[in-house]
């Protein structure tokens, strides 16, 4: 076991040590706060650190342990949340300038409450792209989130602070959101695990929306086991979110070591054509590692391109409507990199958006048909590893694409239809990390997590501490 107060201790190891009384939760929290104080000015991951509350929560866990009272599955585990989650006493800024004028939240988001009930200790709130309309990790109001593996490169967004904090040893678990890829793009670029559960699995009560019909919440972690442990305490319905399914908890952690043989479809065609060399290599490595435990076959699912287009238009129109009053009154206070896209979204022809909703359903039917042959689909999470900070275009398959909407190109089709996806980090020798998506049929997060755990045990996927010196200068 690693030192539970150190930066690379796993959440499950911390919880085990705290529960047994071999380390105090306060000592774990103090060490985490010290690391944030030292590293955050350079990385820009945290926007608020709740130090007083952190230490109080940790002390309460220690008191329970000392008194022999039961503590939760995440006893003493530090965590942080994207700043679109309500945290009592803080305005829910959602990455914007406008929202920080809001009254402080009166209570925590439901998922923050559930983490606390499991004994986890809140460290603070994390930087993000404005109103979650971002794949880069850049923010005009709070500054960029810098990639801990190379601070000159993007972290990915919009859950940028989550990817950075968890990759940099500043929070073993963080909670983010994903509308079109915002849990998967930063996990890919920063080299950590994330889980985007099935749409409707986790309640969004007490979070600031982006696109209600597409918004998901989920965790980041440095191991598949930690990811499952966090996911399990987050599950369960909540009446405050009409989009949350009334399903009972279905714990995934016990299924991690399942030995069932998986039928795996490697997504070829459009997914291959829109992947760069390192993304293709990562998928090939994952396929090799899965092969002894699975029946692996190639699969074309090129309808994903239309699914991505549908998600783009639904997102553009629905989010613009949500922000319409702010756009009318205060457009100049938006981040310029999101403002113009929101304004365009308010002007789209209605027939485009109605057709997008029909195509979304059409794409869902075709994707579900693929799961008659396969248990798991595999595709890159991003077309490439982290681009340079400030880049505006993406060179891909001989084309030059606008970077901001294109970095999530390969992730968007799956959130469009709500499928569960685990992102597993792959580190090539001397290269920046890149993530691979492990996609399952609806409500089968356990299959995604089982595959991630299997890849981790095989050495094909892992979150590695940042070591800038081992990076090759040609990492793209």
């Amino acid at each position: 076991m690693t030192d539970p107060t150190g930066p690379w201790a796993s959440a499950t190891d911390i919880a085990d040590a705290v529960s047994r009384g071999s380390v105090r939760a306060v000592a774990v929290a103090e060490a985490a706060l010290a690391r944030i104080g030292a590293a955050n000015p350079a990385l820009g991951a945290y926007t608020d650190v709740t130090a007083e509350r952190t230490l109080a929560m940790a002390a309460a866990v220690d008191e329970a342990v000392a008194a022999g009272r039961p503590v939760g599955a995440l006893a003493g585990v530090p965590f942080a949340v994207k700043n679109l989650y309500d945290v009592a006493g803080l305005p829910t800024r959602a990455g914007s300038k406008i929202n920080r004028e809001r009254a402080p939240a009166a209570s925590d988001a439901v998922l923050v409450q559930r983490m606390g009930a499991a004994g986890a200790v809140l460290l603070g709130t994390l930087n993000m792209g404005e109103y979650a309309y971002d794949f880069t990790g850049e923010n005009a109001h709070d500054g960029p989130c810098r990639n801990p593996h190379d601070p000159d490169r993007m972290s990915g967004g919009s859950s940028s602070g989550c990817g950075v904090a968890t990759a940099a040893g500043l929070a073993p678990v963080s909670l983010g959101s994903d509308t079109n890829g915002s849990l998967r793009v930063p996990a890919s670029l920063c080299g950590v695990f994330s889980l985007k559960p099935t749409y409707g699995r986790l309640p969004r009560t007490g979070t600031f929306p982006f696109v209600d019909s597409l918004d998901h919440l989920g965790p980041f972690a440095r191991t598949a086991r930690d990811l499952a442990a966090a996911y399990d305490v987050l599950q369960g319905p909540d009446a405050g979110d009409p989009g949350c399914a009334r399903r009972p908890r279905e714990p995934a952690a016990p299924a991690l070591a399942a030995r069932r043989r998986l039928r795996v479809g490697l997504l070829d065609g459009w997914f291959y054509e829109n992947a760069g060399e390192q993304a293709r290599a990562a998928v090939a490595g994952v396929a090799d590692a899965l092969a002894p435990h699975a029946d692996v076959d190639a699969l074309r699912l090129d309808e994903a391109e239309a699914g991505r287009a549908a998600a783009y238009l639904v997102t553009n129109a629905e989010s613009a409507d949500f922000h319409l009053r702010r756009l009318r009154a205060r457009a100049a206070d938006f981040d310029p990199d999101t403002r113009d896209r929101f304004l365009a979204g308010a002007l789209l022809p209605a027939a485009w958006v109605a057709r997008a909703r029909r195509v979304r359903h059409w794409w869902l039917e075709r994707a579900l048909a693929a799961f008659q042959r396969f248990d798991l689909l595999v595709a890159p999470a991003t077309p490439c590893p982290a681009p340079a900070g400030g880049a505006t275009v993406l060179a891909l398959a001989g084309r030059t694409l606008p970077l901001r909407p294109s970095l999530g190109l390969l992730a968007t089709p799956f959130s469009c239809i709500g499928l569960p996806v685990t992102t597993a980090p792959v580190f090539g020798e001397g290269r920046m990390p890149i993530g691979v998506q492990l996609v399952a049929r609806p409500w089968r997060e356990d299959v995604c997590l089982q595959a991630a755990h299997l890849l981790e045990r095989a050495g094909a996927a892992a979150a590695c501490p940042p070591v800038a010196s081992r990076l090759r200068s040609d990492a793209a």
Partner: protein
Amino acid sequence: MDWEAYLAAVAPAVGLPVDPGWRGGIVRFLGLAAEMAATLDAVALADDHLELDAVLVLQEARHD
């Protein structure tokens, strides 16, 4: 398509003030949205029924 002209015509109808410095970005994103719409237009959907993705599901009324 002349997205500059479209923007000039439609933004006032929606009540959106548009700073001249923002027009280039908005026009660029309208063009990108049009590319997405063209991709959707190429999908052969059935022309005799609707398959909208969201259907309002009503809950039983609560009686206190």
